[in-house]
């Protein structure tokens, strides 16, 4: 099946540091979605990117969609302890809705 790879798999940062997770697909994506899963919780939708080169911001979070629509990134500025969790990109192309391998973020106070 399709694979959407994310790097890194794990990231530990000091509170206040920045964090970035990258998502790469072997195929061109029609659009990409991002989800956050808090420890012990369930994935929750953050945002969807559709256009080539699109950049969207949500407070300290910046999402980018690559020009070729094969990669995406999520950048968090000045992390806080509330940012802890696993971040997933997702490929909703077709009818299988594949999720990336996820990046688990730990924020050290």
């Amino acid at each position, binding site marked *: 099946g399709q694979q959407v790879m994310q790097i890194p798999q794990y990231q530990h940062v000091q509170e206040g540091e920045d964090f970035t997770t990258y998502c790469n697909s072997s195929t061109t994506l029609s659009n990409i979605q991002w989800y956050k899963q808090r420890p012990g919780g369930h994935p929750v939708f953050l945002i969807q990117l559709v256009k080539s080169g699109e950049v969207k911001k949500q407070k300290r979070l910046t999402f980018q969609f690559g020009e070729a629509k094969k990669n995406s990134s999520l950048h968090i500025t000045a992390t806080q302890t509330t940012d802890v969790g696993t971040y997933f990109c997702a490929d909703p*192309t077709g009818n299988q809705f594949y999720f990336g391998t996820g990046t688990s973020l730990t924020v050290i106070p």
Partner: protein
Amino acid sequence: DTAVSQTPKYLVTQMGNDKSIKCEQNLGHDTMYWYKQDSKKFLKIMFSYNNKELIINETVPNRFSPKSPDKAHLNLHINSLELGDSAVYFCASSQVFGNTIYFGEGSWLTVV
């Protein structure tokens, strides 16, 4: 009201048993899903289903079967449980294929 609800939340059972996890969504969505999340947090899609089409991930053993009595429900039945089936199972729904997915809170299955 919880949008996507699944029961039970926790399930401990012995190898070889048959078990079901129930899922209901009150969002009026046409599409429902089952995902398996392993200890490494990988979210693997098992099934996608709407009232017209069932898509089965080819890697899912046929011991797993979805059952949908109506559009608002998609239950997961597992036969002959194995140790490797231990995981968190998430039910989810979306308006149609490809739209935003809303997840249930998960069912923690432990096979002993």
